């Protein structure tokens, strides 16, 4: 139980934060980990703040804990407008990191974070998805950023694995596979750490 | 199968299932009767109106003719006497 990495996702209903959380669970599972991926449920409302969670452990029987995560190692913020209304760094480990979908630099974002001392990362997931997928669906780039920063999964294995499952899912639409893979790689590359 | 009100709990069928059809025949409701329909074959025109009116299906019909009331099941309600236009059925205390 000691080697479990805990991740908290913040997003808005309809943006795909839950999907990204489940995709991370999937990817971690595929690389041999014990996983949990679950949303905090309530009445479902488009645009309302939501949270989703991952627990990822090396082998063994995994975590038996069934509660939300209050002291995460990493926090992923899919929508930066949440920084104003939600205390996204609450309980976040100072040895961990927060990853925010933003055009701003980590230094600028840090000013909005109520004194968080740990690592702050930003990636412009909106523009990346616009460029690679033609739409603003930030969850794919944010997933890649979460892998890049947290190291919960080997990066190359993650990319190979994502390619495999995308090819399976979009067998008749190779351009979608291509776009998503570019989104993942761009996000990992453009991630700013501060 | 002989299940009755003296049967022990383990002698009943599982789920109170009943394996015989038409067990209602064993309940002789004729015992409830205080007045009895008396059928006068001479006056009867065999119109058979009494037959569908009998709530206990106690008036047997054979080859288009009604027979004597089956007193095993007749509760003596008197509906047959009421609907008979020919006075062929009278209710009597026997």
């Amino acid at each position, binding site marked *: *139980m000691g080697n479990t990495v805990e991740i908290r996702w913040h997003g808005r209903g309809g943006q795909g934060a839950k999907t990204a959380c*489940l995709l991370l*669970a*999937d990817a971690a*599972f595929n690389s041999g980990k*014990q*996983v*949990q*991926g*679950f*949303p905090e*449920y*309530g*009445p479902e409302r488009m645009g309302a703040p939501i949270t989703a969670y991952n627990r990822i452990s090396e082998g063994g029987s*995994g*975590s*038996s*804990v*069934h*509660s*939300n995560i*209050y002291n995460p190692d990493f926090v992923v913020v899919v929508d930066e407008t949440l920084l104003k209304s939600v205390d996204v760094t609450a309980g976040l480990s100072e040895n961990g990191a927060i990853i925010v979908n933003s055009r701003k630099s980590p230094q600028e974002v840090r000013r909005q974070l109520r004194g968080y001392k740990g690592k702050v990362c930003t990636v412009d997931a909106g523009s990346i998805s616009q460029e690679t997928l033609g739409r603003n669906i930030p969850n794919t780039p944010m997933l890649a950023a979460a892998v890049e920063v947290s190291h919960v999964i080997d990066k190359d294995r993650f990319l190979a694995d994502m390619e495999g499952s995308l090819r399976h899912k979009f067998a008749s639409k190779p351009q979608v596979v291509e776009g998503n893979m570019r989104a993942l790689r761009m996000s990992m590359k453009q991630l700013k750490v501060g | 199968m002989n299940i009755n*009100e003296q*049967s*022990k*709990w*383990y002698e*009943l069928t*599982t*789920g*109170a*299932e*009943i*394996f*015989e*059809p038409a*067990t209602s025949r064993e309940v002789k409701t004729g015992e409830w009767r205080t007045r009895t329909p008396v059928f006068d074959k001479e006056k009867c025109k065999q119109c058979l109106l009494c037959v569908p009116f009998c709530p206990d299906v106690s008036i047997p019909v054979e080859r288009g003719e009604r027979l004597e009331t089956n007193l095993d099941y007749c509760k003596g309600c008197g509906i047959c006497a009421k609907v008979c236009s020919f006075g062929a059925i009278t209710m009597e205390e026997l």
Partner: protein
Amino acid sequence: MRDRMSGNEAVAFAMKQIDPDVMGAFPITPSTEIPQYFSKYIADGEVHTEFVAVESEHSAMSTCIGASAAGARAITATSSAGLAYMWELLYVAASSRLPIVMAVVNRALTGPININNDHSDSMGCRDSGWIQIYAENNQEVYDNYIQAMPVAEHCRLPIMICQDGFITSHAVENIELLEDEQVRSFVGEYDPEHYLLKKDEPLAVGPYGISPYYMEIKKGQAEAMKESRTRIYEVAEAFAKISGRSYGMIEEYMMDDADFAVVLIGSSAGTAKAAAHGLREAGIKAGVIKVRVFRPFPWEELRKALRGVKAVAVMDKSEGFSGWGGPLFAETRAALYDLEESARPLLQSLVYGLGGRDVTVSTFEAIYEDLARTAEAGTVEHIYRHVGVRGDEEGIQG
């Protein structure tokens, strides 16, 4: 097969592997995904099940009763108000001794209106004559579902396979699945002795039970429920042989030498185990008892497991409004009545987790600390308490 899926998908997957004859269901959160996944299996031709889309849960259970009486293997899934709407039919299914298998995804029974997890729905119908088995995680709900039919059909009792709404139903976790053939041969073909469609044996089901028969029929149900314990163990033993995973009426975690224990049902047992594990490293002898089977009630197992423990919190995820504690507490306390006084633990009732209120490792740490204080004091100050209620001075905060 190593895989990962949510608790709802795990149940639907088990259903697919079993391929039952009839499913009557009406969707309700958080169980909706079960008929949803299963409908896809039907549409894809992976099962031969007849899906009866009904207009209410009352009709869903009626469908199952009709199908089961006719000789079919009948299943359904529901939650909360849906289960409540089945209420009168639950009793009809049980007294007609129809081995219907129902997946219950536990959710608070309104009100105020709430869609999150607690056990008030299935606890409310605990006395309806259904076997009730609860799961801690998706693995257990899958395993319990596969054991359900061999238990229910042998005992001729209907069975509820329960899991915690959202907490496990919507959480993706690792799972070990059995091969289809393993499941099919374990569950076997359904071959009832009597059924309505048996043409050589006319049959009436669900007769009026007048007073001279009614109690004898209820006694039959009561005896079947008592005996089902043996079958539950037999099936669990056979299941362990094919899966390597063992189950009983209860699960004891670090109970051998425990001074302090919590007794509870469902997903929070996993959280309690993590807390107990941590406290053991600090030298505190904490243990956990997870009640897997609530009906029939595991009174012998609990009496044995709790003998000599110093202080125990029996935790209910449903209110009893008895003014004295929840249903698990009341029955656990009754089970300990026959212990000699020196072996009887100090016992208290903790009502927790209602309507989705989260329970964490630190909540359990606070509970164990409180148990240690109770043991030290040698007396239970407040028997009936709540966990994490704001402004509750008699309760436990944490």
